[in-house]
């Protein structure tokens, strides 16, 4: 299974380094402790440039999901589920849902992160159904 390799910048590399270690990291502002994702240099709340990586629980719920059917891409099951997850920390991120059939997915369903390694050693965070907390 192949996937398109993500690009990185000095602002975003920590996220992918975390993924490679099995950790789902977001930025925590050094000025006001606000969390943010996707990564960017400045905190929109206090304009601080200071931040450090913050490890999320990797748990959340399905906020939205779709099944892209056309065009088909190599490396993806048909159908595959693209999901927008809302993490317990209140942040959202896009990923895939695995280990579940599309007809069993509902918005609001609890999910948890896992990590999948694809062709060429590309590691991506993926989500699967979780027991309610």
């Amino acid at each position, binding site marked *: 299974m192949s996937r398109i*390799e993500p690009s990185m910048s000095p602002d975003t590399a920590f996220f992918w380094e975390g993924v490679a270690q099995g950790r789902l990291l977001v930025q925590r502002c050094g000025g006001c402790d606000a969390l943010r994702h996707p990564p960017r240099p400045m905190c929109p709340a206090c304009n601080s440039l200071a931040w450090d990586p913050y490890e999320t629980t990797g748990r959340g719920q399905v906020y939205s999901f*779709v099944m892209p*059917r056309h065009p088909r891409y190599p490396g993806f099951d048909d159908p595959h589920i*693209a999901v927008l997850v809302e993490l317990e920390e209140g942040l959202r991120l*896009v990923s895939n849902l695995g280990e579940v059939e*599309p007809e069993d997915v509902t918005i609001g369903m609890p999910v948890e992160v896992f990590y999948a390694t694809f062709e060429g050693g590309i590691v*991506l965070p993926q989500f699967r159904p979780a027991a309610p907390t």
Partner: protein
Amino acid sequence: MTAWLKDRAAIVGIGQTEFSKASGRTELQLACEAVKAALDDAGLRPSDVDGLVTFTMDTSDEIEVARNLGIPHLSMFSRIPYGGGAAAGTVLHAAMAVATGVADVVVCYRAFNERSGFRFGDTGSVLGGGLPLWLSWYAPYGLLTPASWVALHARRYMHTYGVTNEHFGAIAVVDRHHAATNPDAWFYQRPITLADHQASRWIVEPVLRLLDCCQESDGGAALVITTADRARDLAHRPALITAAAQGAGGDGEMMTSYYRDDLTGLPEMGVVAQQLWKASGLRPSHITTAFLYDHFTPFVLMQLEELGFCGRGEAKDFATVENLSIGGVLPINTNGGLLGEAYLHGMNGITESVRQIRGTACNQVPDVEHILVTAGTGVPTSGLILSPSA
């Protein structure tokens, strides 16, 4: 925006090429043809032009267009970003330029071979050269096309308000019905029914079927803008620019604004709408007909709500074939829109609005007083209100 610009500038010329799937010529040639056609329509010469405005995505350089047309000098040129969100923005910049005296005559143009050349969402080119940074949050998960980005947003809207894909079908039926009687439209004489819409294949399940997605087109379109005073001496009834606005919302991305408090609206269009109503002094009930950007049908429903034609969550009941067809409360996309006429990045909605003001549209709406035009949705965008008289 203040009301200062109100009715000070006008669209006095429109030009377009044929709309096709394979133009057989360069994008630069299409741009030149459209600009020349618009100047001829206005009864102006290339030597009258001193300003050019286009999209940042356009491949035809201003100085090349000027060199081909024989425009002797340019004193003003600007480009508008964010894809189809630029369409009405070009007119705003042109209107500002002529109303302030920075330029006398400004031409706005957009030309591309979006079907036979580079196609948006063409993964081949994306895969070849490394992902853009922003796309790295989406492409590895299979969200590689505008359709997929829009669908993930629209799904949340559907969930919140009980909207189904069948509700979106009304937009496709209206557009194709209008296109069927427009000889310029790619889908001339090819109307569809709701059953056709529901039978078309999924592009992104369960949000977008094939007939929810606009076509891809080759072609060019251009608009000539000058002051309202000068417009009175020209060939056609001017389309006065009653209001023009651009808008970006907070915490947004180009097409993947998934991080805002809720995903049931189009905040960019809200910013535009607020300015248009304030600057014009008009309300939705004053709009005779509208061109609502229709690259994907769900965002037409969301626009109706952002613009105030109905309340939040009410578009699924408001957006009926009857209401949005000629004779209805708000006829939309009388040329067939991007779904039915052509995907000219929204510029063909502006040319159609000018024809409606002149009374020369194929599907003419009677007694036009004010027309609303919107540009690309889900991206930072723009909008216009045009009127036949102040």
